[in-house]
């Protein structure tokens, strides 16, 4: 006999089979071992640099470092570096391979999606296909897919936020101290990893206030929680906020005392002209990166159906969704300028979409119970064709983002990918401070060749470059275009100092 009833296996088997098929269809697994590349490689290299520096320089969790060592020995303030620290442990244990970083990020979002799927199963009385379809509807966003195995913490934050919501609703339904601890841990981690996910705790606290005001008085007990439990959750929420605020205050302190590697301030748009600039860019470039056309149609239809059948909508799910949407809008306002160039800012606020799907799943189950069980079946058929189109859109976008020409157009850092072994063979260690030109990014080339130092680009002044070249700390210079260097520093004697060449790069020994 099986130790687990076969019925219990249906849900995970269905979920993971569908997920693996989907990833395989996209060609997702082929990208798992790739070095940071394609769009927003800059931000990805920064995060990857933190992990490598943990492993190679210092495992002190509270002193994250980047490869740019010019200021503050590379120590920088940033979001809670859990996403960087776990891969660093793997690097220590098994050796450096970025698959651990990509794998950890992927693991967190898969965990979040699976728990959200289980939440939908709980709500829909084990309607496997409806739960799977609605989980997919929330996830089939080109942006979510692309960043699912990237080096960005946003996707991990989303995964933790979904996990937190699963445990919260489970706690509402069944109670249990362990369930609450899980909720609190995931909610705090989600917020630590990305501050936007603090919304989970804030929304729960709003729910508590509404519960106090008897907003949920159509529930069985009149209240959602007993008074004592309500206070406990509230205090736990306050404690969570203090933990999160403490980290971000510490991160600000690190940035001010050492170096500013990451933006930790709000960048709202303060006039209509700038608003139009950002809005037009979203419409032009990002609109269908967030969700496919079919995805938007689906969500609009869901909102319309919820509006029409409002009396069947569960108050708790509705209010949680509404408050999350409102909170997300506040975040969009605060960071609106960043939405111009950063597609990934949508990731943490896409929790709203998942919650909308949750509200609708409950609504559908209720009207099926009231009217006919055929209704969910009809919706599943519609959902099948709808998500099919979204999957095709995701594949198209994913292929575009990893198209070799597109990747190279975004910044050709391929020559740096395998430079490190050559440098080590020549006796150059990672702590031999290196200058890298001409690199317009933050630390792409330094990270990819694993050299601590500083980089400069076409716009760095001649004086600044000369100053850096004369700085006795720098021992080597790596240049991808010697003609540019000769223009910047005419009459130099660098041709006498070449150590080696590599895929179009020139490596000079400065001293």
């Amino acid at each position, binding site marked *: 006999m099986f130790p687990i009833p076969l019925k219990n296996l249906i849900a995970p088997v269905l979920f993971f089979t569908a997920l693996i098929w989907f990833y395989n269809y996209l060609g997702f697994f082929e990208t798992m071992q790739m070095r940071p590349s394609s769009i927003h490689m800059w931000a990805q290299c920064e995060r990857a640099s933190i992990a490598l520096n943990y492993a190679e320089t210092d495992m002190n969790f509270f002193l994250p470092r980047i490869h740019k060592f010019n200021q503050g020995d590379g120590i920088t303030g940033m979001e809670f570096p859990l996403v960087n620290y776990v891969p660093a442990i793997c690097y220590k244990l098994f050796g450096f391979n970025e698959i651990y970083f990509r794998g950890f990020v992927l693991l967190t979002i898969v965990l979040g999606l699976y728990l959200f799927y289980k939440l939908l199963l709980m709500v829909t009385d084990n309607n496997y296909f409806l739960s799977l379809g609605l989980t997919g509807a929330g996830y089939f966003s080109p942006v979510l897919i692309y960043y699912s195995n990237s080096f960005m913490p946003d996707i991990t934050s989303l995964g933790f936020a979904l996990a937190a919501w699963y445990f919260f609703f489970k706690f509402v339904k069944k109670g249990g101290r362990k369930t609450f601890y899980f909720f609190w841990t995931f909610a705090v981690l989600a917020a630590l990893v990305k501050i936007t996910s603090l919304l989970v705790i804030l929304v729960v606290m709003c729910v508590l206030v509404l519960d106090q005001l008897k907003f949920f008085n159509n529930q069985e007990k009149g209240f959602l929680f007993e008074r004592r439990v309500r206070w406990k959750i509230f205090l736990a929420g306050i404690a969570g906020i203090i933990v999160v605020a403490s980290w971000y205050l510490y991160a600000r302190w690190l940035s001010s005392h050492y170096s500013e590697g990451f933006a930790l301030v709000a960048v709202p748009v303060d006039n209509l002209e700038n608003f139009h600039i950002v809005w037009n860019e979203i419409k032009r470039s990002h609109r269908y990166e967030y969700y496919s056309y079919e995805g938007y149609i689906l969500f609009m239809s869901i909102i319309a159906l919820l509006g029409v059948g409002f009396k069947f909508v569960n108050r708790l799910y509705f209010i949680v969704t509404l408050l999350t949407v409102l909170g997300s809008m506040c975040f969009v306002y605060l960071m609106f300028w960043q939405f111009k160039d950063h597609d990934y800012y949508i990731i943490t606020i896409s929790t709203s979409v998942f919650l909308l799907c949750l509200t609708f799943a409950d609504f559908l189950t209720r009207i099926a119970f009231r009217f006919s069980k055929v209704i969910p079946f009809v919706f599943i058929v519609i959902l099948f064709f709808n998500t099919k189109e979204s999957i095709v859109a995701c594949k198209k976008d994913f292929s575009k983002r990893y198209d*070799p020409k597109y990747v190279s157009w975004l910044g050709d850092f391929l020559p740096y990918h395998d430079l490190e072994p050559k440098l080590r063979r020549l006796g150059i260690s990672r702590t031999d401070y290196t200058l890298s030109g001409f690199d317009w990014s933050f630390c792409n080339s330094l990270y990819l060749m694993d050299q601590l130092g500083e980089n400069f680009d076409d716009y760095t002044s001649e004086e600044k470059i000369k100053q850096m070249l004369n700085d006795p700390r720098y021992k080597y210079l790596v240049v991808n275009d010697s003609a540019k260097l000769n223009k910047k520093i005419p009459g130099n004697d660098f041709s006498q100092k070449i150590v080696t060449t590599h*895929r179009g790069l020139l490596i000079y020994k400065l001293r």
Partner: protein
Amino acid sequence: MEDTVIKGHYFNRMDSGSQYGFKYVYHLKNEDFEKPIRLILTGKVRTNFVHSTGAITYVHADSIKVINWDGSNLTKHVSDLNKWGYFKEVVNFKRSDSWGRYTRIEFQGLLGDPRYEVFDLDSIRIKLIRFD
């Protein structure tokens, strides 16, 4: 896609005496117009100049005009100067509406600036596949 090609081993040197390498032309068949085409170029490359201007170009053309001209610079595949480097380049030819219909793709080795450089290509294999 398959085409009749001359089988054999060819070494191709480009320098100040000869800026252009061997040329291969693929004439599109009817079924090639239905889907985008992916090019997979493999072979060996060698040069004596770190910022090599050597490339393999691909030209989309019909019988009277060139529609699009592009190429793969092979510098990034030369790990050490004067030593052979193996390469694989993958390029997706996605049709642009403004291109119009091209009927052939021409491939050719090219040395952009032949004054200071000796650029060698060997064992080049051109593979074209239709993809979704």
